[in-house]
C-alpha cells in the first residue's frame, strides 16, 4: 500500500509541488532587505568599530601609557612608546593601531584602566592611500574629540551593565 501511494505521489510530483508552494508563498512576502545607505540597521551602544582615544573634561588625555592594551592585544595591532611628559607624568610618545591587523575584539577597551582607548560605533570608513591604515595617536585623539558626545553617551548607556 505504502509503495503504491509513494508511486502515485512520485507521478503527480507531489513533493515537488510542496517545494514550489513554499517558494511561491515567499514570492509574495515582503523583502527583508534594508536599503543600506538610506536606511540603516539598529546598532548597539556596544558596537565595536573604529578606535578613538578619549580625554578628561579638562582636556588632559586619559592614556597613562600602562601598555595593558598592547599586552592584551591578540593581533599585535597596537604599538606604544612612552616617555616622561612635560608635566612629569608618564605619557605615550607613540600610540599606533594598525587597522589591518586589528580584529575589533574590544580587549584593549576592556583592559584599559582609565577608559582611554575605546571602540566607537563608527564603521563606515575607508583608506585611500598606503599607510592610512595606521591610526596614530593624533588621529585617535582627533576621532575622540570629534565624536566625544557620542562616545560618552554610549559609555553611559552601557555603564550599568559593567
Amino acid at each position, binding site marked *: 500500500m505504502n509503495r503504491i501511494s509513494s508511486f502515485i505521489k512520485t507521478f503527480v*510530483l507531489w513533493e*515537488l509541488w510542496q*517545494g*514550489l508552494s*513554499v*517558494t*511561491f508563498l*515567499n*514570492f509574495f*512576502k515582503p*523583502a*527583508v*532587505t534594508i536599503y543600506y545607505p538610506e536606511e540603516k540597521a539598529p546598532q548597539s551602544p556596544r558596537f565595536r568599530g573604529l578606535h578613538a582615544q578619549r580625554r578628561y573634561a579638562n582636556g588632559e588625555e586619559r592614556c597613562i601609557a600602562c601598555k595593558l592594551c598592547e599586552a592584551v592585544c591578540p593581533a599585535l595591532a597596537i604599538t606604544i612608546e612612552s616617555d616622561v611628559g612635560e608635566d612629569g607624568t608618564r605619557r605615550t610618545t607613540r600610540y599606533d593601531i594598525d587597522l589591518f591587523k586589528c580584529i575589533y575584539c574590544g580587549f584593549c577597551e576592556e583592559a584599559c584602566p582609565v577608559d582611554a582607548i575605546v571602540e566607537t560605533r563608527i564603521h563606515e570608513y575607508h583608506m585611500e592611500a598606503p599607510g592610512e591604515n595606521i591610526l596614530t595617536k593624533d588621529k585617535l585623539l582627533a576621532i575622540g574629540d570629534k565624536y566625544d558626545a557620542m562616545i560618552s553617551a554610549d559609555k553611559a548607556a552601557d555603564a550599568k551593565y559593567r
Partner: protein
Amino acid sequence: MKALIPNFVLNIWDWFPPLTQYLIETTFWIVVVMITVILSVAFTTYFERKVIGYMQGRIGPNRVGPWGLLQPFADVIKLLIKEVVIPEKSNRFLFVVAPLLTLIPALATWAVVPLSDTFVIADINAGLLYVLALTSVGVYGVILAGWATNSKYAFLGAMRSAAQIVAYEIAMGFALVGVLMAGGSLNLGDITEAQAGGFSSWFLLPLMPLFFVYFISGVAETNRAPFDVAEGESEIVAGFHVEYSGVAFALFFLGEYANIILISALTSIFFLGGYNSFFEGWTFLAEDSFLREPSLLWLIIKICFFIYVFFWIRATFPRYRYDQIMRLGWKVFIPVTIVWIVVEGVMAWMQVGPWSNLSG
C-alpha cells in the same frame, strides 16, 4: 499603414522584381523578430534576478535606472568592454565559433513560430521537424566550447551536457509525437489552429503527462537549474564556459536565455494553444472584446508565464545528481511518453472524454 508611406517610395518599391521584394520583406521581419527576442533576453535576465530575489526575501537589482530596469544594459556594456581571453592551447576557431553555435539555432527557430494568427516568418510544412533539428544543433555549441577550450573542467561539462541532451531529446521527441497526433500536422500554425476554441480545446488536458515531460525536458535541454550539471559551479567551476570572457561569454548568456524564451514559446504553442485566447467562446465578455480574439498578446502572456516557471523552478530545487538525471530521462520520461502516446491513440479512437475532439 500604406497611407503613411510617401508615394515615391512606393514607386521605387514597385520597380523591384518580386523575388527581391520578398527578400527585403522577409529580411525586415527577421530583423524585427531578432531584435525583439534579443531585447526580451535582456529583460529576461532582469526578470530572473527579480523573481529569484523576491522568492528569497530580497529585492533584486534596484539601483540602475528606475527599479533597476537598466541593469541588463549595464551588464551588457560591462561584458562588451572586457577583454576576450583565448587560451593559448585552445582551438582558436572552434573556441570563437562555439558561442555562435548556441545562439544561432535559438534565434533561427523563431522563423517557424507563429506569433499571431496572421504572422509567421516561414510557414513551412515540416515546422515541427525544423524545431527538433535546430534545438538539437544547440548542443554542438556546448560540446565544441568544452572541447575547444582544452581544459578538463570544460571537457567534463561538455560531456555531461552531451549525454544529458541526448537523453532528454528522445523524451522531448516522443512528447512531440503526441502533439503531432493530436494536431494532425507538423506545421506549427496548424497545431495552434487545432487548439482554437478556448481552454477546453487546448492540448493541455488530454496530453497532461506529455506537457510535463516536454517542459521538464525543455528545462534540461536549456541546461537550467535543476539540470545544470553542465555548468555545475560547485563541482566543475563553470563547466563548458570556464575560459570564456567578455563578448564570447555574453553570447553564451544570450543563447541560454534565448533558449529559455524559445522553449517557453514552444510549450505554449504545443500545449497551451499559442496565440489562442483563454476566453475564446466565453459569453460573459463582450462579443467584440479583444480578450476573446486570438492575438500576439496571449502568446506573450503564456511565454511570460513559462519563463516565470523556469525561474520558479530554479529558486526551488537543488541540482540533480548526474545519475539521477540519467535515470529520470531514460527510465521515467521515455516510458511515460510511450505509454501516453498509446493511451492517447486508444482514447481518441474510442472518442472518450477530452480526447474525443482531437483531430488525429
